[in-house]
């Protein structure tokens, strides 16, 4: 089909249409790969996918935040190119981001006025107010207009964001994970609103990874997996199981061999009860609060033994980060107990915990794992800087030994860098992660807590890090693996726990689960429902 025909087609049926759209980031990451997608007027389109599937990147390209590397966006009026979100807004496309872009000390009216010219002239503010009052009446989005938005509940702030976009009279509203911050009641209110907007002829793209939501409110669902569009279905024609299957998919072709090999080995060891070593980590009724003081981990109890990989699967944001942080000494627990080989670790600082034989591969390598402006050598001793090996008389650093240590790490773990004194930020993501994993494994730990150890890495580096974890397990170390990558969990774990809203909704051996059931459990279906 030529472009001209495409344009005709869009005029007839589509509000907006992406043709072969691709995004390659500066570091070579292929985030969105040749996606063709249309958005029709007056429909709610669900966009489903795991973390990192490319949902956000795709919609950012549609809303003018990112330029596509290849492909084009068509509208009934022809090819459109947005140089900025403002141009997209003028065209009629508005996006509500997962993290709100509101000025906390401004009122709702001021926040809405902010995007217009002369936002703080009295005329503008009055105009905005009356427009907002009208909009609120039409949409039922009730928010106090004269209270600083930081005083509003999260659900109300989201309504301000939606009002902000609606006030620009958009035809297409994109909502990125809008329900992740809402209570169930607020979700119902939001969905009712979305239906009203649809009835008023607007198009809506709803990004989510929750199956229940997407099947309750949308007409049509597109599924993304690893940057590719793997499904475009009408909601009525699919079951949740089919959606779960589409979302988590089959193991990627490249890793299939290695993954099966690992899985077989895992299963062999797993079935051999004798080989599972003594309990190392013992957690009882652990409760931890998140950043916003909500309970993130609820009364969690589990054990991890030597020689086993205990894998925690789940969609991110269900308490995994908080669990790992509390075990690593970075976040206080509300109550409960956690012991390493019988010694309590809650309330201890990270260094004391490391002394008990804990290695912690943190989830966020830039925020926690590395001091980016530091050199490789300096980063290689983070957490073990006070070991006698590295710090001698009067606390002087033993630079020669530290350099030798880094060189050893570079050799053993294949870290590509210009030398021990290269700044850590000059390394690629894979090499940065190898540096962290190498540093942690070099501690000769009894237990390795690895959070999202392969996220964002290319297949080679990811596979190498998985092999390292398996090797540690073979040596009888305990491994607590938290990952949003289901393939990884399935391939490596002796036991799997599925975490949803701070609880384990199921624990078992990998053979007890199939992919679709895990997908359902991750999406919040109860165990009965999933069975």
């Amino acid at each position, binding site marked *: 089909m030529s472009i001209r025909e495409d344009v005709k087609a869009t005029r007839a049926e589509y509000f907006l249409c992406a043709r072969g759209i691709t995004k390659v*980031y500066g570091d070579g990451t292929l985030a969105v790969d040749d996606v063709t997608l249309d958005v029709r007027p007056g429909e709610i389109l669900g966009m489903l996918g795991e973390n990192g599937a490319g949902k956000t990147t795709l919609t950012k390209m549609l809303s003018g935040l990112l330029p596509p590397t290849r492909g084009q966006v068509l509208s009934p009026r022809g090819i459109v190119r947005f140089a900025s979100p403002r141009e997209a807004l003028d065209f009629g496309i508005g996006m509500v981001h997962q993290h709100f872009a509101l000025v906390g000390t401004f009122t709702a009216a001021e926040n809405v006025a902010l995007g217009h010219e002369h936002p703080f002239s009295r005329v503008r503010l009055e105009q905005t107010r009356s427009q907002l009052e009208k909009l609120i009446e039409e949409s039922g989005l009730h928010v106090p207009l004269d209270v600083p938005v930081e005083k509003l509940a999260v659900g109300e702030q989201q309504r301000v964001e939606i009002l902000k976009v609606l006030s620009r009279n958009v035809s297409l509203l994109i909502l990125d994970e809008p329900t992740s911050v809402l209570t169930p009641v607020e979700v119902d209110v939001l969905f009712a609103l979305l239906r009203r907007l649809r009835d008023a002829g607007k198009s809506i793209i709803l990004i989510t990874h929750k199956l229940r939501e997407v099947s309750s409110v949308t007409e049509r669902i597109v599924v993304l997996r690893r940057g590719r569009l793997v499904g475009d279905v009408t909601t009525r024609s699919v079951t949740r199981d089919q959606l779960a299957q589409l979302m988590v998919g089959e193991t990627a072709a490249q890793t299939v061999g290695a993954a099966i090999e690992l899985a077989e080995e895992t299963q062999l060891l797993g079935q051999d009860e004798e080989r599972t070593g003594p309990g190392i980590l013992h957690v009882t009724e652990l409760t931890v609060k998140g950043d916003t003081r909500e309970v993130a981990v609820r009364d969690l109890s589990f054990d991890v033994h030597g020689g086993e990989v205990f894998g925690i699967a789940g969609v991110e944001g269900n308490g995994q980060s908080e669990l790992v942080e509390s075990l690593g000494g970075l976040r206080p627990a509300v109550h409960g107990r956690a012991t390493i080989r019988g010694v309590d670790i809650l309330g201890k600082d990270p260094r004391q915990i490391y002394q008990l034989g804990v290695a*912690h591969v943190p989830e966020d390598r830039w925020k926690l794992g590395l*001091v980016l402006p*530091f050199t490789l050598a300096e980063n290689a001793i983070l957490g073990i800087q006070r070991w006698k090996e590295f710090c001698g008389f009067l606390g002087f*650093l033993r630079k020669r030994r530290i350099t030798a240590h880094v060189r050893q790490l570079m050799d053993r773990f294949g870290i590509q860098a210009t030398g021990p004194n290269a700044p850590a930020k*000059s390394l690629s993501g894979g090499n940065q992660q190898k540096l962290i994993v190498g540093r942690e494994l070099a501690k000769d730990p009894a237990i390795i807590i690895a959070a999202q150890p392969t996220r964002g890495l290319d297949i080679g580096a990811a596979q190498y890090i998985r092999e390292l974890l398996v090797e540690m397990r073979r040596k009888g170390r305990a491994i607590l693996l938290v990952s949003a990558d289901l393939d990884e969990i399935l391939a490596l774990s002796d036991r799997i726990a599925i975490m949803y809203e701070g609880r384990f909704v199921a624990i078992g051996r990998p053979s007890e689960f199939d992919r679709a059931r895990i997908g359902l459990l991750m999406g919040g279906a109860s165990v009965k429902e999933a069975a």
Partner: protein
Amino acid sequence: MRHRRAQTAPARRRTLTGLSPVLESALAGLLGLLVGVVVMAIYGYNPWAAIVALFSGAYGNAAGFANALAKATPLLLTALTFAICVRAGMFNIGAEGQLFMGTLAAVAVSLVTLPPGIGQIARLVLAMVVGALWSLVPALLKVTRGVSEVISTIMFNWIARWLALYLVLNILFDPLRAEKTISIPMSGRLPLLMGKTTLSVGFFVAIAFALVVYFVVWHTVVGYEIRAAGLNPTAAKYGGINSRRTMLLSFTLGGMAAGLAGACYVMGTPPTYSVFAGLPELTNLGFDGMAVAMVGRNHPIGIIFSAIFFGGLNAGGRAMQLRAGVPLDMVRVVNGTIVLAMAIPELIRILPMVKSGVRRMISSVRPRRGADSGDTPGDPDSSTSRGDATQEKERGA
């Protein structure tokens, strides 16, 4: 998360403008002098004569250079105060007050009689202790109650100032000359190094302190922890580093430097070896130290050189006033412009539009380095759009 790496990974260049730090500091110094020249020309002075007088006065002969080093001594130490705390991730604006307290501690020792040798050491040590104690109050407020150190150290400067004025006029005053404090006795003075100049052993004390700071911060585990906590507090916590400890330590070290600055000044400055009411000679030594630290890139070795440069400006300023008839205040114009010029790289970081503009300017005058080939050369639009995208991405993230 994945998106952000595009910006962080290729950031091999050392500074924000892509120039080497030494060159950046030198350019700022040059710009400061240039603006000074323009201002002088506007006000009808002869800028050429003034500049010649300034530099020949500061560096032209041994006596001038000695005076420049003498002027550099307290600046070097107060610059270290600021620099150590910046390395620990904090802004210690309190060198001024810590210096006042250190000075008066050194003067107060004169109330008792001590033998030579002991007298000097006792004064230096006590000044360091008092300076450290004075800086520890804001530091403790910070680590226990979360009080911003910027605000509290500024407030402590004023408390120190009025306390110092009170002590000078009411407790430590000289019975024979009430406008100044008692003089440091011979047994407590730092030996002068050259006749007819004010250069004393204090300069070497300051250099020694800078070297100690260098070794502590860059070669010991304590310094490692201070720098880690300053660069990435969350990673430091993960690394088992107690950031409260590193904060207190850096403030202690900084307070010691500031106290020492005051002691070196009062113990090594003829002819009176005392403090005058109104603290004219001490005022602004702490604040000027911040400019010295900025130009010295918050590195002890860099600070030694930048302190000598600023010391030269101050010492040469006298010659400029004398020979070219330009008021001494012109030196402050130059100082101020240098500080502003040092802020330009920061400005570039904040405003991506300026950044792409400056990048283009720089790339048009010199060949591009391999390291900053983030955007395609030859495509004038690419850097602008990348700037926009960066800004948006940061907002989105």
